């Protein structure tokens, strides 16, 4: 008999769906956040946190000022140790055109936890949807327009655009961020829930989320998390709202080569712990999965079975093979040993080249598959 954790009750599912429905009704009809009439609410609230990096923030604000759809507000959350920074940022905003700067609200906080300004902005936002744009992100001119169009077609859903990566570094002397690479597109073209549990597949600014649903769920960014608070937030929301993919590349995620960033300063252990926390949070609630999830779960299960098969074969081989310097408790070492054996007896270079190319595309899965082939060959 399955335990309660594995089998959420129908009542729990019903309550979840009711909550979702109520939120969508609120979003689509007359009720609005904080009693602001719907007609007065902008489509989007853009939340941007900054510690005062004026040069990169100028680029980001310029991208916003150049949007083809101006139905948005900007909540600029200044979180700086230096008391003079908020005034500098406000002055920077004032240099922009009146039509743009009238839509920017500068909010100053003093050394709050880095996540706290996000929740403060969520509370202050008046948009029907919300997006988080970092102060070094760049967006294309149709970023808001694309979100808006898809949100109108799919009310209540999260909208996701695509992103490219570009390496940047601060140029000596000027302090300006300069690109050092072209674009790469490392993120999945479509949203897939499971892949986000393993690694970042969507920079925050790729999402546009319905604010009324966020309110109805009482959802806030987890201020106990050091990193990955955005992934946690968006995945929890995605289980309720679903995600509509757009094929449009909406943003450039700038990857810093040298500048201080969480990618450089947070240990792998903290990253892993954060991801585990996300899984724990998701374990606490029943999940609605998107279409095609059954196929992906089947494929994952098949892969797991294959891995189990490999482990069993390695166990059987252990006594037969000569002692080596390899640690047999380490699957990686076992595979490495088997690889050497395989190379010694197999001369089919074309096949090997094909396998290597495949392995490069799908390293983990194909490495396992390759190892199975090695073992089978040795057993002949």
């Amino acid at each position: 008999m399955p335990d309660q954790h594995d089998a959420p009750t129908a009542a729990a599912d019903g309550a979840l769906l009711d909550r979702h429905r109520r939120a969508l009704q609120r979003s689509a009809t007359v009720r609005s956040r904080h009693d602001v009439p719907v007609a007065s609410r902008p489509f989007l609230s853009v939340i941007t946190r900054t510690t005062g990096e004026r040069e990169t923030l100028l680029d980001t604000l310029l991208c916003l000022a150049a949007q083809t759809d101006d139905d948005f507000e900007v909540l600029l959350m200044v979180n700086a140790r230096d008391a003079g920074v908020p005034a500098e940022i406000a002055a920077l905003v004032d240099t922009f055109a009146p039509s743009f700067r009238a839509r920017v609200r500068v909010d100053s906080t003093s050394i709050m936890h880095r996540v706290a300004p996000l929740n403060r902005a969520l509370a202050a936002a008046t948009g029907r949807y919300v997006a988080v744009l970092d102060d070094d992100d760049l967006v294309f001119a149709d970023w808001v327009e694309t979100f808006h169009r898809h949100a109108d077609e799919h009310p209540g859903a999260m909208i996701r655009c695509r992103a490219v990566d570009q390496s940047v570094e601060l140029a000596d002397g000027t302090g300006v961020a300069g690109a050092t690479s072209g674009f790469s597109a490392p993120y999945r073209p479509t949203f897939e829930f499971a892949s986000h549990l393993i690694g970042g597949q969507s920079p925050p600014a790729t999402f546009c989320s319905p604010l009324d649903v966020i309110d109805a769920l009482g959802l806030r960014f987890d201020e106990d998390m050091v990193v990955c608070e955005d992934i946690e937030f968006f995945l929890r929301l995605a289980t309720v709202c679903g995600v509509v993919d757009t094929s449009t590349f909406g943003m450039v995620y700038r990857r810093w080569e040298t500048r201080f960033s969480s990618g450089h300063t947070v240990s792998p252990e903290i990253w892993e712990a954060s991801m585990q926390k996300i899984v724990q949070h998701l374990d606490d609630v029943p999940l609605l999965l998107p279409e095609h999830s059954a196929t992906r779960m089947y494929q994952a299960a098949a892969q797991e079975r294959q891995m189990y098969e490999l482990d069993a074969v390695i166990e059987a081989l252990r006594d037969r093979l000569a002692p080596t310097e390899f640690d047999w408790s380490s699957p990686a070492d076992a595979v490495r040993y088997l690889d050497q054996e395989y190379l010694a007896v197999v001369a089919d270079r074309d096949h090997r080249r094909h396998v290597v190319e495949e392995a490069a595309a799908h390293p983990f899965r194909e490495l396992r598959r390759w190892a199975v082939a090695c073992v089978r060959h040795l057993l002949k």
Partner: protein
Amino acid sequence: MTSTAGPPTIGVQIVVFANPFDQLCRLADGLETAIRHTAAAGHAEGFEIAFGDSSPTPLLSEADVDELRRRIDPLGVHRVSSTFFDANLGSGGGSQRLLEASATDLIWVLNPDTVPSPTVLSEMLAMMAADTAAVDARQVPIEHPAGFDPDTGEAAWVCGACVLLRRTAIESVGGFDPRFFPMYCDDVDLSWRLRLDGWKVRHSARATVFHDKRLDADGRPGASEFEHESGVLSRLFLARRYERPDVVEQTLEWVDVRGTASHRRAAATYRARLVDGDVPEPMPGAGLVANLDSDYYGPNRFRY
């Protein structure tokens, strides 16, 4: 900063071709910020903003020009005008026509699909040293990969999407060449002629301009068929002018063997205009500054 005493006067030139009006409004809003910032700092004075219209029919009504004027210059201090060319002069030809109709110390050439940042003009002005004929800006969100000296900003050429030019320098080399029609490489050609004449051209990384370019389905800066055609045609023009008949020959061969329909149209246009004598003439000795071995016509920092 310039050869004239006191703050320089600046003429802003925008050549349009059937652009959406809301696009021009965004440009106008950006212009307002840049002019306000520069004028307040006393870095320049006497702005003239000129739209040159290459559209088949007049793009801007009087009311449209009034609206742009209101956005660019709410205090009514500067001159804002629009000229209908009644012909498609291309980017180089249109820029040259506007240049001849003005008399400001400096010329700021802008694409209609750009939005200037508040500080872009001040930053370009700051780099306009006495030996400098042209300064261009850093584009976002797609940064141009052309190389430049990080200390001096010195570059092989400057991009015409947003560039500040010294009138005396460009007039001394004959200005824009309208034969680089319809577009592309009129800026490379002007840069190389300025350098041949002893001037420096520079890139200001601190000067930021938004340029509304998008990515294709593969996440790469996209180019339309027309842009591909113009790219090949302008490459042939450059190769002819800058003493590289081998590049002309190789390019035409490549088009014949591997080119698309757009490339073949470009090759056919080149051959026809060669017969008509409507191509840039070769300049003896000009190959000294040219770099036709690079796709980017000079050193590049990275590739897209």
